[in-house]
């Protein structure tokens, strides 16, 4: 069973308002009013369109990251399947969503990615499910190590880098770990000072190896 993760403290509320046609290109850029991102995910697709799988992948990413309310992914998949089976052109509409309870509070960066969907969508949908799942598994593994050893734990700050890597950051007093997750690689940087040669250490890890030492370092 996946260990439970603490909900982050979120002070903003995000909603989504955006439209996509069957090519899934955005019809207008993300609306930003004040500090509320808004995206209405309205999807129209043709029968048996290959884009439907990409839509599912996209929604899966949002779901894994905790941006979709419970059962939303299942409902969307059901509707998409229904469209296929009915052999007609229809739309799938997801309600505006309150993002105040998202799991990792990374929605702003996701939103900026979504804002560039026309450019990044193919890459996002083909590569991102794996990246997101890897990040999720990594967080679960590290959390499991912390629980097993009764060590310090905190929800990571989560971002998306310019290269679409998922960036996880943890701080514990004078120590910090940053982890970059991409489709094929998981890189880490340990930081305990500003000296890049003598107070930082970088390397790569995999989900298959024992991560106890990595977490012990920041937890101790």
């Amino acid at each position: 069973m996946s260990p439970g993760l603490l909900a982050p403290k979120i002070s903003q509320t995000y909603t989504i308002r955006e439209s996509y046609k069957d090519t899934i290109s955005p019809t207008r850029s993300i609306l930003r009013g004040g500090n509320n991102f808004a995206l209405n995910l309205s999807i129209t697709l043709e029968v048996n369109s290959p884009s439907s799988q990409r839509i599912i992948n996209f929604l899966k990413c949002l779901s894994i990251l905790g941006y979709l309310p419970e059962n939303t992914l299942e409902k969307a998949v059901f509707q998409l399947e229904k469209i296929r089976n009915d052999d007609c052109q229809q739309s799938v509409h997801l309600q505006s969503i309150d993002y105040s309870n998202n799991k990792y509070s990374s929605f702003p960066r996701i939103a900026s990615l979504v804002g560039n969907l026309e450019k990044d969508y193919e890459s996002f949908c083909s590569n991102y499910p794996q990246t997101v799942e890897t990040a999720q598994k990594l967080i679960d593994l590290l959390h499991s190590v912390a629980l097993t050893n009764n060590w310090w734990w905190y929800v990571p700050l989560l971002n998306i880098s310019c290269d679409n890597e998922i960036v996880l950051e943890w701080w514990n007093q004078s120590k910090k770990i940053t982890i970059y997750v991409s489709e094929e690689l998981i890189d880490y940087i340990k930081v305990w000072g500003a000296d890049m040669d003598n107070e930082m250490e970088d390397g790569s890890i995999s989900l298959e190896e024992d991560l106890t030492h990595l977490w012990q370092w920041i937890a101790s």
Partner: protein
Amino acid sequence: MTQDFVGDEEVLYRCVFYGRNLYQVQGNTATISSQAFTDREMRPSVDRADLCDNNAGYPQKDEKDAVVSLITKDVRLIDSVIQNNPKGELEFTYKIDVLPRPFEDNQAHAQIEPSPEYKNKAPFRKLLERLAYLAKQRGWEIEPYELRQPTK
């Protein structure tokens, strides 16, 4: 008038955008993320305090944005950023500098640039950590919006 050299003692401002997960708020403190300094071209932008009347609000795009600062000499890491080859042997060192890159509408603009160009992401990622560490040591010039809220 824009000078063509950024002095070692010059203060540099960096805008930390609100709502982009660029800091972690815990209680009444906020810790800046290394991603607050990231840049697609691996040349983070800053604004020179001397050229914007030492106004920390100058780099803000929105009043809710936070602002941090750095000292130029702390950013300049002459011969201290190492590029190793795959065997872990020293290949060469980067020189990190702060160079004036004025825009028509922002004469204070400067960039933190390497020489030579980064061969891979590793040294730039470490630089991001260093910049965040240095900024954290100096404290916020303008606190994150979440910390400005009056407590009830």
